[in-house]
């Protein structure tokens, strides 16, 4: 029996940005922008240390929806604005809420907050097939 989805359904995902995560992500993605891997470069750019690549945070948004629809291959759309940096040692909580289910496709809004309750993403939206 395939599971059913309805507007208002929710899902949650938690990820910690461990100390070396920006370096792992740099290696795998090729994004070696110094603000991600060098705390001094981050501070020089006014960021008060190094920050995680936004695309890694977006990868966690995808992980959250992929877990909810039980298959990352069903993800059809993801977008977000990186409103606040994610730093090493931050813990990010993703909370998704289904806003529409139509034609075998689900749309959800996702919030992402750090351990201080501050939003690190704005306007995050995902879409996935559920058919």
């Amino acid at each position, binding site marked *: 029996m395939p599971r059913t989805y309805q507007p208002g359904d929710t899902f949650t995902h938690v*990820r910690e940005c461990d100390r070396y*995560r920006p370096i*792992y*992500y740099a*290696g*795998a*993605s*090729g*994004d070696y*922008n110094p*603000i991600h891997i060098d705390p001094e470069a981050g501070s020089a*750019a006014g960021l008060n240390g190094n920050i995680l*690549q*936004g*695309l*890694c945070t*977006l*990868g*966690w948004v*995808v*992980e959250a929806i*992929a877990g909810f629809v039980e*298959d*990352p*291959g069903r*993800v*059809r*759309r*993801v*977008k*977000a*604005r*990186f409103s606040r940096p994610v730093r090493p040692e931050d813990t990010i909580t993703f909370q998704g809420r289904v806003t529409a289910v139509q034609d075998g496709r689900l749309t959800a809004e996702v919030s992402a907050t750090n351990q201080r309750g501050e939003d690190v993403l704005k306007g995050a939206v995902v879409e996935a097939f559920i058919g």
Partner: protein
Amino acid sequence: MLDKNAIGRASPPTLNEVEKGAIRRFAEAIGDYNPIYYDEEYARASGYPTIIAPPTFPASFHSAADLRELLGVGIKSLLHAEQGFDYERPIFAGDRIYVSTRVSDVFERPGMSGKMDIAVIEDEGRDEEGNLVFRARRTLVVRAAKETP
């Protein structure tokens, strides 16, 4: 401010071969150990011909685009402000994807310390038959270097 003439400037398609090892490393870098990213049998049992890549995998693709050339400025720093992906289908191990990059928009936005230069860059990935696989759209805050590129 950035040169409006940059809008529409594009790079030729660049081939990206999707390798299993690269998929696995990318999934590990996110910390996502879903077996669909490294276990052939699991992927086939899930209805796919082979393992798939995490949807944000195009972050690792390269294109011939040199942002300094596309935007026509030296770049002191870049900050990623927004990102979106639209997928026509999953990306599979063994895919050969041609990525092209285009400047979609440049404009100024008020920021904390004066006006910020914004560039909107669109990437498009197509398979060898020319079918669209994904579109990506990133918004970058660009700090131009004083000297010319």
